[in-house]
């Protein structure tokens, strides 16, 4: 037997969707996390209710790498339909736990097999007829726990934590896990090098949160009161979490009244329309969507931009075009969302790169929307939104809500009614608005998506149109200096990476790998559009700058090129990953090393 490999391995469970396998995966994840070991789970699931292949990757590293691994150390093969293909993914020397009935004839000889009669065990050992199918998945949790040496106490914790709100389910699940755990002890001796040992200090203060949970909490803390949405993967869970949190935190216990309205709309057109109507009337309003939904919101986004209505729009990106791969991740909406709608339109776009930022930027998006009276897009993605991520606990907000330039009745009295909805009195492009219901004769104005002058009157006048459009540019320029600045991590390296969103995890790991091989690289992470001036300055300090992103056409690369002075454009290079799977570090290190080998 070779040297033991401790706390540094990737488990891949290949199962069938709709069978309850996700619950088993999460129990395993929580058990290992409870041992103090960093975990990074990725769920790869089909657009289907029941019966299609699904995979769950649980990456375990002492460093806490959170990007997807391109290697599998331990395969749990539960799905005969994908068995042969799944087997190919295992690293030489890896371990394979598989259903005994799957044939290993002519299979690879460079891996260790542990054949387990899962179906027979489920039939003979699980008494609960109705839950047998679901509980069968728990048997493999027990086998893996035995194989890797996960203490029973950690398994118990994982089950209790997973069934926090359903404590009755704990014993029956533990019994099923015990079946696998005992089977391991009774039938196998360890033939592979992988094992888990409790760690100290690696996950202290950390929690496991999905990006969509974080964004829902952020929206709640940002003071959202009107939410309208239409179900679509991978954004649905954001509003579903919001519904659950609202039921818990936004019900007036004295009256039973809800201090929030969450509407499941008839489509994405209505969803964004309701949010914009609410934003116009003074509520903090939002919608959340993905894929085709963001296309449908284009027209209304233009209205909110031009009529200057605050609204927050979450786009949890999936891979397109069209229906695309509805359950696969992507960063390919960046360019589209930035200028969403016809005409000269440009939006504020926030780009969370961690679940903590999903929380913070979701929360702050409402301030930006009110402050700049414009739609604010929060661009997350399936990987960030729907997977569990290890994160430091989120911080309680240290700033009050910023409701922007809103004139009250008293303000209007003080001004003797002298105001104009679209007059730029402060020179920052941001004008003052009044809300419907303001009891002053000068408060009312007519909001429209057609041409308007400073007084909000209809006009097709050339000068008034151009003046208004110039002011809108000025407003975005004001916003540009206030939005979250790029985060730089520099140590004077000649080459650097630029990335945004969920690509961050792979960049962090890639930099460690590159540094270890004598090629340190600096890093700038973009957190908002329009781009900060810091980007050009960062490029100026480096010989080569690689823009890494998860889309085919290098959308951020293009935006940065457009923003750079001509003499810097040649320093930019593009690394793209676009197969629907979260980007692994190797998808950065390999092309970077290849491109570095090419003379400039």
């Amino acid at each position, binding site marked *: 037997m070779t040297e033991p490999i401790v706390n540094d391995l990737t488990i891949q469970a290949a199962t069938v969707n709709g069978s309850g396998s996700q619950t088993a995966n999460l129990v395993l994840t929580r058990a290992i996390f409870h041992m103090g070991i960093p975990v990074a789970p990725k769920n790869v699931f089909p657009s289907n209710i029941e019966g299609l292949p699904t995979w769950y990757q649980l990456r375990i590293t002492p460093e806490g790498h959170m990007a997807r691994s391109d290697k599998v150390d331990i395969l749990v093969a539960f799905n005969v339909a994908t068995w042969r293909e799944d087997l190919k993914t295992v690293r030489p020397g890896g371990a394979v736990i598989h259903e005994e009935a799957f044939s290993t004839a002519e299979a690879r000889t460079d891996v260790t097999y542990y054949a387990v009669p899962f179906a027979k065990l489920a039939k003979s050992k699980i008494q609960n007829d109705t839950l047998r199918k679901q509980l069968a998945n728990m048997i493999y949790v027990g086998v893996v726990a035995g194989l890797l040496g996960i203490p029973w106490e950690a398994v118990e914790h994982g089950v209790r934590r997973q069934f926090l709100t359903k404590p009755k389910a704990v014993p029956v699940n533990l019994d099923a896990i015990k079946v696998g755990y005992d089977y391991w002890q009774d039938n196998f001796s360890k033939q592979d090098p992988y094992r888990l040992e409790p760690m100290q200090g690696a996950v202290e203060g950390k*929690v496991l949160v999905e990006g969509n949970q974080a964004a829902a909490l952020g929206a709640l803390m940002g003071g959202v009161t*009107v939410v309208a949405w239409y179900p679509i993967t991978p954004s649905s869970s954001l509003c579903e979490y919001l519904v659950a949190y609202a039921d818990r935190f936004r019900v007036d216990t004295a009256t039973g009244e809800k201090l929030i309205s969450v509407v499941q709309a008839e489509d994405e057109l209505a969803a964004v*329309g309701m949010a914009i109507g609410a934003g116009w009337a003074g509520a903090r309003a939002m919608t959340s969507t993905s894929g085709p939904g963001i296309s449908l919101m284009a027209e209304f986004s233009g209205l909110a931009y031009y009529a200057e209505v605050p609204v927050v729009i979450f786009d949890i990106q999936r891979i397109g075009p069209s229906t695309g791969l509805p359950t696969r991740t992507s960063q390919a909406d960046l360019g589209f969302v930035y200028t969403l709608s016809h005409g000269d339109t440009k939006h504020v776009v926030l780009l969370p790169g961690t679940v903590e930022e999903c929380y913070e930027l979701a929360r702050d998006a409402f301030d930006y929307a009110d402050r700049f009276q414009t739609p604010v897009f929060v661009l997350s993605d399936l990987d960030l939104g729907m997977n569990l991520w290890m994160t430091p606990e989120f911080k309680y*907000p240290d700033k009050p809500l910023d409701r922007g330039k809103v004139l009250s009745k008293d303000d209007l009295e003080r001004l003797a009614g002298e105001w104009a909805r679209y007059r730029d009195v402060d020179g920052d492009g941001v004008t003052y608005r009044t809300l419907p219901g303001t009891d002053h004769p000068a408060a009312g104005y007519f909001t429209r998506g057609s041409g308007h002058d400073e007084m909000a009157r209809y006009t097709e006048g050339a000068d008034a149109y151009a003046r208004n459009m110039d002011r809108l540019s000025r407003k975005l320029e004001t916003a540009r200096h206030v939005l979250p600045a790029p985060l730089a991590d520099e140590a004077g390296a000649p080459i650097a990476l630029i990335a945004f969103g969920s690509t961050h995890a792979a960049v962090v790991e890639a930099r460690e790998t590159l540094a270890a091989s004598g090629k340190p690289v600096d890093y700038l992470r973009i957190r908002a559009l329009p781009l900060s001036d810091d980007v050009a300055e960062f490029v100026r300090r480096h010989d080569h700058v690689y823009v890494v992103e998860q889309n085919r056409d290098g959308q951020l690369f293009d935006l940065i090129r457009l923003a750079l002075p001509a003499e810097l454009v040649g320093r930019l290079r593009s690394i793209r990953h676009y197969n629907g799977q979260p980007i692994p570090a190797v998808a950065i290190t390999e092309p970077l090393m290849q491109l570095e080998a090419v003379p400039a």
Partner: protein
Amino acid sequence: MSTALNRAGLARDAYKGAATTLCAGCGHNSITNHMVKALYELGVEPHLLAKMSGIGCSSKTPAYFVETAHGFNGVHGRMPSLTTGAHLANRQLIMLGVSGDGDTASIGLGQFLHMIRRNVDCTYIIEDNGTYGLTKGQFSATADLGSVQKKGAVNTFQPIDPCAVALALGCSFVARSFSGDGKQVVPLIKAAIAHRGTAILDIISPCVTFNDHDGSTKSYSWVKDHEESIADVSFIPFFEEVHVDYEPGTVRDVQLHDGSHIVLKKLGEDHDPTDRQAAIKVIEEGRAEGHLVTGLLYVDTKMDDFATTEHIPQRPLKDLSQDELRLSRDQFSQFMSEFA
């Protein structure tokens, strides 16, 4: 012009808006005048009025009444979603939506249906001329089968009747009228505003430029010849005493949510406005006989409106304080600890 002050202390002029830019003689301008009269007589406070619209000739009209009120001229066919959102943000507002037949029965049909399904508290006026005026005279989806365009083209499709559709969906207030019949339109607008729920008011409103010729069933002369009112409509607001001097048995009295009354005086056959099947029947019979049936077709004062169903407080959601909106520090740290 009356200078008498209404309940809100305002003269009728306070309900006027910018000068209309629609064609002289447009039915929509008449409706605008009816709107001014209705809002003035109801004593609506302008700052509580929200005038909502989509796109088209009809949707321009909110600029032509109550200039001091807030208005929102949104995108084509989407007035209902904007209205729903604004209403949720502030239940105190009186939501008054103005739409057209293209805006409602074609591009906006989906939102029209779903607003009714939710019974959002608003008045929804369809200024219905069976034609696309701004784009110069194409048929709309409410144009009658066989009606003729100005240049001679014949409509070969069945019309969508917004009232019939609304009734089929269980809309809580459905009425039809004619822009030239102020005596009927004004009380219906008032009743629609007093009603709590979605009130659909389909007002046939001839397009003088593109659809006011022989062969059109939305022309002044056709409607004048074919209008059949099912009852005389009077509206008595909650702040006036009910005083009816008709013979017993010749009137129906419907009390609305705010205490107002609609008083319907029988004309010929009696129509019970609380009987949905009868309303559908009266529309179908009118259609078969080539009549345009006008009046209050149906009203249900028992159905909960959307905000009530959703347990939204009367206090505007937009006014909630930071302390009511954010979790407390304790709640927040307890919540975070549950992710461990």
